[in-house]
């Protein structure tokens, strides 16, 4: 087994030699910052070239022209209709005076010229993905954005292509097809470029796909390595460097042996969330999706390596450690949320950690060198588990909340979308707080319900979601990861399904599903400003320095996604189980907003 692993790696590395070493990224590299955080926390550039702002995924912009005082004068400077109606989840990118936005299906890439009044379209690139891909996507036909490197914009299409488009001309440099919609695969995540590779993953855990992360050469699109998340160690790229902190992740071929029979072959563990990178350790961090498509009673065992967090060597893809957040996931708690890399003083010592506000409702602080969980505290109401056993590195199960077919189980909290879904948090090195866009949702597993698909009747649990304690379905939380407590929070009527940006002016921005774009004081949570956009917001705000030297804030408005499918997909809210049970919690959303994608750029007078 080991021999095979070494041989296949050698082949992969040999394949890497074609890259021109001079073909390096030209734009500004992150500048060091002081205070209690990592040097990766702040980027000096006023551009926004990757989804998380920096490789540490802090979504912190050090720009400070917009302050807690001046933000009250913020106003729209440019608006732009994308022409599409489904959920707009992407972060815009800004590179050298041009803004790039990717729409939901059909995944059009627009380049807007920020140097000219009104930011006119420079070009648009239309990848024309297969229409049939829309029928495969589980939860609206979203796209979470693009990344810039080496003069190219990299993004994924719903029908499983990764595209490199020349950032100046809009012409494709290369296009590779990495999956097959006919096998239930789609791609929705935003890639990350690490050195000379672009990292991408597949979606479709509900469809029985076998999840993977793939590294492509930025110059050619050629596959440098691919790591699967079920199956034998050689497929998972587990070898001699793999040193998980906890014993339950140690052993040979656990990606086979923690599943019954051949269930691992359709085991899920897709990658549709966020990737972070620590250049000092040369490790990439990303989480894997839920196991599927089997019901949990059909897959006894830990179901490795689904619903957990990998640290891998950025060059070879070799696994270095794995933290299994949700072994044998019962509740659709994908573990794909962002890892925010910071250095914190914990117990009197500086630790290299990563912060993870997870679907399971816990804020994990994990040593990113070793994979040891240092703390895990609930940031929302949690009943599905009874806490995290840090010594064993796994949740303490709650038997009473285990879904059993034909049995009614009430008040499972958080509901399947988790305490927080994919919508990324932001970390300010100035306040030391993590700003978490959260859900406050619980669910019931009801009795058997019959249904019908592709000519075939089947039965399943009837899942209904509803507001958790307090009646608000969302919350915007400032969390102190050192003190391990909520500092302040703002209750929101709907789940907070947008990303966050926090700035050097100590202002945090986020959006709501009924269309308000809000600025709050990063220290106190006081609402400073708000603007009603045309549709609900499920996108990710950014902060950048325009060609005129002024700070701007940009956001895509356009409701949709899993939570917003009742509007974007015109679902009938009388059918509470639509959108995998989410419709029941969102019956009033169609009255609160309507669909339509629009870019908003805000600035000071």
């Amino acid at each position, binding site marked *: 087994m080991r021999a095979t692993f070494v041989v296949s790696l050698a082949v992969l590395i040999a394949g890497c030699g074609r890259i021109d070493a001079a073909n390096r990224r030209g734009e500004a590299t992150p500048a060091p910052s002081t205070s209690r955080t990592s040097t990766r926390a702040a980027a000096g550039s006023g551009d926004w070239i990757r989804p998380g702002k920096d490789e540490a995924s802090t979504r912190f912009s050090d720009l400070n022209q917009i302050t807690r005082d001046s933000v009250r004068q913020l106003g729209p400077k440019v608006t732009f209709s994308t022409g599409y109606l489904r959920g707009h989840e992407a972060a815009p990118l800004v590179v050298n005076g041009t803004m790039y936005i990717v729409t939901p299906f059909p995944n059009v890439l627009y380049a807007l010229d920020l140097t000219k009044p009104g930011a006119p379209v420079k070009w648009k690139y239309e990848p024309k993905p297969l229409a049939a891909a829309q*029928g495969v996507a589980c939860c609206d036909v979203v796209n979470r954005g693009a990344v810039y490197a080496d003069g190219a914009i990299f993004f994924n299409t719903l029908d499983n292509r990764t595209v490199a488009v020349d950032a100046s001309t809009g012409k494709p440099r290369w296009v590779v097809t990495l999956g097959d919609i*006919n*096998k239930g695969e789609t791609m929705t995540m935003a890639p990350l470029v690490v050195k000379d590779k672009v990292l991408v993953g597949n979606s479709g855990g509900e469809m029985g796909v076998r999840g993977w992360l793939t590294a492509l050469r930025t110059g050619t699109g050629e596959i440098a390595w691919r790591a699967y998340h079920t199956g034998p160690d050689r497929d998972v790229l587990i070898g001699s460097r793999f040193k998980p902190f906890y014993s339950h992740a140690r052993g040979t071929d656990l990606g086979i042996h923690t599943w019954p029979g051949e269930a691992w072959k359709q085991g899920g563990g897709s990658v549709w969330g966020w990737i972070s990178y620590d250049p000092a350790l040369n490790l990439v961090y990303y989480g894997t999706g839920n196991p599927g*498509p089997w019901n949990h009673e059909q897959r006894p065992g830990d179901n490795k390596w689904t619903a957990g967090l990998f640290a891998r060597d950025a060059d070879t893809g070799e696994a270095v450690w794995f933290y299994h957040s949700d072994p044998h996931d019962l509740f659709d708690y994908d573990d794909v949320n962002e890892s925010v890399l910071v250095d914190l003083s914990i117990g009197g010592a500086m630790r290299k950690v990563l912060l993870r506000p997870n679907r399971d409702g816990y804020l994990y602080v994990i040593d990113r060198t070793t994979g040891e969980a240092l703390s895990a505290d609930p940031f929302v109401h949690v009943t599905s588990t009874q806490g995290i056993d840090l010594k064993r590195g796994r949740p303490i199960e709650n038997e009473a909340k285990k879904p059993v*077919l034909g049995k009614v189980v009430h008040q499972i909290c958080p509901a399947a979308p988790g305490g927080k879904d994919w919508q990324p948090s932001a970390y300010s090195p100035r306040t030391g707080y993590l700003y978490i866009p959260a859900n406050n949702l619980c669910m019931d597993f009801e009795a058997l319900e019959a249904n019908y698909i*592709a000519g075939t009747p089947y039965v399943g649990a009837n899942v209904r979601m*509803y507001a958790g304690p307090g009646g608000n379905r969302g919350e915007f939380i400032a969390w102190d990861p050192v003190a391990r407590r909520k500092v302040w929070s703002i209750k929101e009527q709907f789940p907070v399904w947008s990303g966050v940006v926090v700035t050097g002016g100590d202002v945090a921005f986020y959006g709501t599903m009924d269309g308000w774009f809000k600025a709050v004081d990063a220290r106190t949570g006081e609402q400073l400003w708000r603007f009603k956009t045309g549709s609900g917001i499920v996108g990710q705000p950014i902060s950048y320095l325009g060609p005129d030297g002024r700070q701007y804030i940009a956001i895509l408005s356009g409701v949709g996604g899993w939570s917003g499918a009742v509007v974007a997909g015109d*679902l009938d809210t009388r059918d509470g189980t639509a959108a995998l049970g989410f419709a029941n919690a969102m019956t009033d959303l169609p009255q609160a907003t309507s669909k339509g994608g629009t870019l908003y750029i805000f600035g000071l007078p």
Partner: protein
Amino acid sequence: MRAVAASIVVVVSAAFIHAGTAQPLRVCSDPNNLPFSNQQREGFENRIADLLARDLGTVVEYTWWAQRRGFLRSTLLAGLCDVVIGLPRDVEMARTTRPYYRSTYVFVTRKDRGLRIRSFDDAALRRLRVGVQVIGDDGANSPPAHALSRRGIISNLIGYSVYGDYTSKSPPSLIVAAVARGDVDVAAVWGPLAGYFAAAQGEPLDIVPVSPQIDGDLPQAFDVSMAVRPNDEARLAVLNRFLQRRRAAINRILDAYHVPRVPAVSGLSRTNAVSGFSRTDEAGQ
């Protein structure tokens, strides 16, 4: 408001009935899902639609849409068509006719193996390789997959996506072909698929209804109806009359496609089994 709605119904149904004035029969159908339907109109639902159109003196006009999540919402309920030829009787999002057939999940085996499996309680199911159809929604599964896992029959199950390989001519056929090839010893398959694809294999296959037909609270047999929009009473009456009058012809079509049928059991799926296809309950606050 009510008067307006009523007049619309009258106009539509008049056009539907007096089809000599060339209002086509608008049907929504999967373009690639034999034996039910395909774009070449080779499925038994295509044949039944032809029969209905002939009866009405018109022709069929199709809207093709994969029958996946959102099918009814995007097609019938969006007004792209007026009739869906095959849906479970109890589907709540649409109005359904009286059922025109009832089928069941079946065990498919190779005749030459002589396995004779009839029941989920057959001890052989614990040691054989068993193919099941897998769905992918949270907590959802084909009824045989539930019945087997309830009995602790887990590690020897092989899953076949209910969607199949949509690039192939017959996406759902993989699970039946797997039995013929010997990839699995037995498969539990929805009857219409099993009957049609078994007949198409070179290898003789046995098809036996699973038992028990109601496994505790799990139904293994389902009534199938035509469907119209919830308020489309006039069209529903036309379809019900057609189904009654042409019962023999419809049965001949189903026979030609080897669709296994079981006798109707009145009211069973609602009272003894699950909550049916009901989706109206607004509880859960």
